[in-house]
């Protein structure tokens, strides 16, 4: 785990997120929307948003059941997220939910989310759990609902149009003072899972807690993520999608693009900008501008996937 101060993140200007021209991605804030493009073929930027052969959407941190002032209507904002998805120019093939589906792991909270997501244009949803989804029973009820065909605590992989997707669980068996944890069993499974894939296979890894060291002081990182990423070194294109921190952040490191999605429920402060990472209250009329969805497009033959964040405003 490296020191977050040396990982290229400017803590004072996270969301300004200008450009990593030398590392292969361009990331621009436009009217509160962060857009990220590969610079490998800059002439095609613009067309990329709609030209993908595979288009999917990431949503995260619905926190169904949360009812505090930061957002007393998380069902309403999740519905707004679904409307946003349904309004995309190209209907996504499926959705990824990167955890904290519920706030308190209650069956009725999961029920509500499942019901709302049914009205999305994309019918399939692939979930990974957040710590709020596995609160009282070591994740048993989460697994019964979402992880029937998964391994271990709910990890799995699948292929879509030549892209290999890996859903990971880093919210179980957390140790005092530590960060997110994948654990030995899951790490071995990852090594085995990617062993026979061609190096040219694009990889998308999705998990709740960031797999890079965003801000360890607030637990925003995963203790053994370096080992998981080591198994993915041989691949030309790796996209890591996370949630948990309720804000958009991106980092490119070699062949790996790390990205965190906005929440559909409430924002959290920028690292170190508040006493704690608790829910951030914004004026009601601004709430939807700090919530959002993430649209991801893959075009065969290109290195990086195009990741486009849209707010709910």
């Amino acid at each position, binding site marked *: 785990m490296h020191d977050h101060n040396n990982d290229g993140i400017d803590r004072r200007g996270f969301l300004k997120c200008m450009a990593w021209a030398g590392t292969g991605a361009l990331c621009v804030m436009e009217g509160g929307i962060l857009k990220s493009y590969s610079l490998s073929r800059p002439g095609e930027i613009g067309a990329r948003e709609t030209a993908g052969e595979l288009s999917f959407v990431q949503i995260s941190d619905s926190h169904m059941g949360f009812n*505090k*002032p*930061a957002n007393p209507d998380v069902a309403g904002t999740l519905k707004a997220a679904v409307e946003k998805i349904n309004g995309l120019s190209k209907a996504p093939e499926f959705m990824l939910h990167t955890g904290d589906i519920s*706030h*308190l*792991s209650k069956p009725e909270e999961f029920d509500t989310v499942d019901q709302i997501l049914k009205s999305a244009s994309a019918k399939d949803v692939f979930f990974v759990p957040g*710590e*709020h989804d596995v*609160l*009282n029973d070591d994740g048993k009820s989460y697994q019964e609902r979402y992880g029937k065909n998964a391994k271990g605590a709910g990890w799995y992989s699948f292929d879509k149009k030549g892209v290999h997707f890996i859903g990971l669980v880093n919210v179980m068996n*957390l*140790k*005092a*003072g*530590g*960060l997110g944890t994948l654990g030995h069993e899951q790490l071995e499974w990852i090594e085995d899972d990617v062993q026979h894939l061609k190096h040219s296979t694009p990889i998308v890894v999705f998990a709740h807690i960031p797999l890079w060291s965003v801000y*360890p*002081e*607030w*637990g925003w990182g995963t203790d053994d993520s370096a080992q998981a990423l080591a198994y993915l070194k041989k691949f030309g294109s790796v996209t890591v999608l996370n949630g948990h921190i309720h804000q958009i952040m991106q980092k490119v490191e070699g062949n790996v693009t790390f990205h965190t999605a906005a929440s559909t429920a409430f924002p959290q402060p920028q690292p170190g900008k508040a*006493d*704690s*990472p*608790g*829910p951030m209250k914004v004026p009601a009329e601004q709430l939807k501008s700090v919530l959002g969805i993430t649209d991801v497009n893959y075009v065969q033959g290109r290195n990086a996937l195009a990741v486009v964040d849209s707010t709910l405003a």
Partner: protein
Amino acid sequence: MIRKTVWIVGLLTTVMVAALLLSAASPGSSARAPQPTSAEVKVDNFSFGPASLTVAVGTTVTWTNRDDIPHTVVSADKVFKSKVLDTDEKFSFTFDKAGTYPYFCSIHPKMTGSVVVQ
């Protein structure tokens, strides 16, 4: 007249009994000073306050979650474990043995604290 005397005697008796009770309860007259039997820890802003608490054997410690986000109170040595505590929910545990009890929030493991029982 008779009624009044009876009333005064009754009052005196009450005062004497009260004085006896008070002297029995005063620190000087008892062999052991009374120990507090309860203590509070507030869970606020993703931290335990106080993070380190020292109590006497037999003390019941009560944690109250004051955050907008749920937390847990889990002994690192598996001595005690709360269910998930939503806002304003409480968890209590009585410490019957001396020792140091480190604990953390299993949802946000960066949150740590300890209870020293002596």
